């Protein structure tokens, strides 16, 4: 069966198409709510995918990511509050256009650019993932161990200023992964006589707690966000002439989005801001930027939707999630027994191409659903915050209970929420914790299997060429990120000294 046939089969024999529609719709609504990032919108859905077949479940989550990246621009344009981090750059010119009475036009540019970016991202995903995954058959237990280490090395670039805290969060995640039955000997570890812990702590519970519940805790102490005007619920799609003008900024957005998405740790926010800057540099009307420039919306919106596709390249090819959203997707894959990484194409081609097909439907349907859902999204943004928090809290608890019919799980989610709140408070990044938790089993099981095969000789990790290559890549990644952090810290110190001196 060819890839196209697999995709067609998945779309026609499973509810993947409905999952794509539903995911995009939920993503737009979730992304439109300030504070509900794409990863939180996905985490809220995760419990509901538990009993679904793998293809619709993952299509639902991935489509949520696609929808949320566009949804984030709605409040960014209408109330100057980005619904997602990646939409922050859109606020600059989007809100300015809205103030000039061109809010509908700004929303139209955002939607069209998002669709274009999403389709380009998907094309890159389809073209790059298979060649990267073709090294599948070369992987041995030592290589899998080194792959896990490479995944963990992403922590270095995710730790935004504090490598030590990132590494500590990663170690905590690995510690959580050791709870439960030992993968080699079968003895129980850190279960404290609780039978619920014998199977370990499910990623899903930690993700929902750390991302969604901690956000609810934070939001409870923040003032209500602004409200959008009632007359703003009409999108004005860009004219052909305007589309022609936007080509250059969309091209810049898609190139930067491709590069940043494929690089673990970069993400949509960086891509959006870089694209905004580059679009201004290359624009024929740079003076309009900041004053309501359509290009200032097109570039970041194309970039963050491109990232929604290209961020899946390292996740599907190597099992390395480079952002919070792809970490949730990775969790979803593992829940459904789909080990991401090199063997995914060999073992589950139907799944991979089904996902690609679902993403195509999601990106195409974004255009229509984006127009249809705008009014409900504005309605939702305008609901009083206390009711929204109450509904989300009830949704979290009901969804989590549905997984295993266990109140113990809700307790774990609340505990993870407290951990997430403390991490936010103390400046610890989340993603290393999730990475450690998700990659813990892969690392420990393959490390010990490798040593069982060699009688305890660690040389096997550098004798295996794939393993050696991955370990070198991990080392380069850590050294590169640490050097960048070090330089950044020195630059800041110099600036502080200069400021203090005069």
């Amino acid at each position, binding site marked *: 069966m060819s890839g196209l046939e697999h995709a067609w089969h998945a779309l026609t024999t499973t509810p993947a198409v409905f999952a794509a529609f539903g995911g995009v719709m939920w993503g737009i609504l979730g992304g439109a709510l300030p504070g509900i990032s794409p990863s939180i919108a996905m985490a809220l859905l995760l419990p509901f995918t538990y009993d679904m077949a793998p293809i619709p479940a993952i299509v639902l989550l991935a489509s949520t990511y696609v929808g949320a990246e566009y949804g984030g621009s709605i409040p960014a344009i209408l109330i100057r509050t980005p619904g997602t981090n990646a939409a922050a750059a859109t606020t600059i010119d989007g809100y300015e256009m809205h103030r000039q009475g061109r809010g509908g036009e700004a929303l139209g540019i955002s939607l069209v650019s998002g669709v274009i970016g999403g389709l380009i991202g998907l094309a890159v995903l389809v073209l790059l993932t298979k060649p990267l995954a073709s090294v599948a058959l070369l992987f041995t237990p030592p290589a899998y161990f080194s792959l896990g280490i490479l995944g963990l090395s992403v922590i270095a670039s995710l730790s935004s200023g504090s490598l030590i805290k990132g590494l500590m969060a990663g170690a905590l995640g690995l510690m959580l992964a050791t709870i439960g039955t030992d993968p080699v000997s079968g003895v129980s570890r850190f279960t404290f006589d609780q039978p619920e812990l014998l199977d370990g702590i499910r990623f899903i519970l930690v993700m929902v707690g750390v991302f969604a519940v901690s956000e609810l805790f934070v939001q409870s102490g923040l003032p209500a966000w602004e409200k959008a005007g009632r007359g703003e619920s009409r999108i004005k799609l860009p004219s052909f002439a305007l589309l022609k003008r936007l080509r250059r900024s969309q091209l810049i957005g898609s190139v930067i989005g491709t590069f940043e998405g494929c690089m673990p740790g970069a993400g949509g926010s960086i891509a959006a801001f870089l694209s905004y800057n580059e679009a201004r540099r290359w624009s024929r009307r740079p003076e309009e930027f900041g004053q309501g420039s359509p290009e200032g919306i097109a570039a970041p919106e194309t970039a963050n939707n491109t990232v929604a596709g290209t961020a899946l390249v390292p996740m599907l090819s190597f099992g390395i999630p480079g952002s919070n959203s792809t970490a949730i997707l990775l969790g979803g894959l593992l829940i459904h027994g789909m080990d991401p990484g090199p063997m995914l194409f060999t073992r589950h081609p139907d799944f991979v191409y089904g996902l690609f097909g679902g993403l195509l439907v999601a990106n195409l349907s974004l255009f229509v659903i984006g127009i249809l859902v705008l009014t409900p999204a504005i309605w939702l943004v305008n609901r009083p915050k206390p009711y929204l928090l109450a509904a989300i809290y009830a*949704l979290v608890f009901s969804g989590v209970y*549905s997984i295993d019919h266990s109140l113990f799980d809700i307790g774990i989610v609340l505990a993870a929420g407290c951990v997430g709140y403390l991490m936010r408070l103390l400046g610890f990044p989340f993603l290393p914790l999730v990475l450690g938790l998700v990659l813990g089993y892969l690392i420990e099981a393959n490390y010990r299997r490798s040593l069982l095969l060699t009688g305890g000789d660690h040389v096997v990790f550098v004798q295996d060429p794939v393993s050696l290559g991955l370990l070198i890549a991990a080392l380069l990644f850590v050294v590169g990120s640490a050097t960048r952090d070090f330089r950044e810290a020195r630059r800041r110190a110099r600036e502080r000294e200069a400021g203090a001196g005069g």
Partner: protein
Amino acid sequence: MAERDPVDQARADLLVAVGIVALATAYWLAADAIPSSPLSGTVGADGLPKTLAWVLGGLAALLGARAAATCRRLGPPARPDPVVRAEARRRHLRALGMLGLGVGYVLVVPYLGYALAVFALGVGTALYNGAPRTWRLVAGGAVGAALFYLLFVQALGIPLPAGVWPGVWKGVFG
């Protein structure tokens, strides 16, 4: 969350470092208590946990040393702004209240049953976050609880807790 004063942040990091060292020690001790098994291989079931405990402890020591150096370099913290401090305390208390609502739900749901507990959670959370005390809140809570019940129990078939009501029903009506 708002950006902190560097000295304040360093002091917080110092406390965190001490806490994490304690956690790493407790984790190491718990790892040491893992029973050995002939199937464990050369590394053993306690191998990774003990290594992690050392790594975490080492990182915490590094964080603590860095924080201590920052405190020494920058001197005593600026006099804390009472308004900022009160605002931070208010936010933490609000978060604690949200946690309390969640814990309360877990405690009452086996007795009240899902429908009533989710109604109480919804109304309680909305009230706690500043919703006005009106009949609309109660009506909205009831409609919300009914929708959640229909979605989870009826449509998705999840056996959510029924509470004491089936027993009461049986006792009253046989």
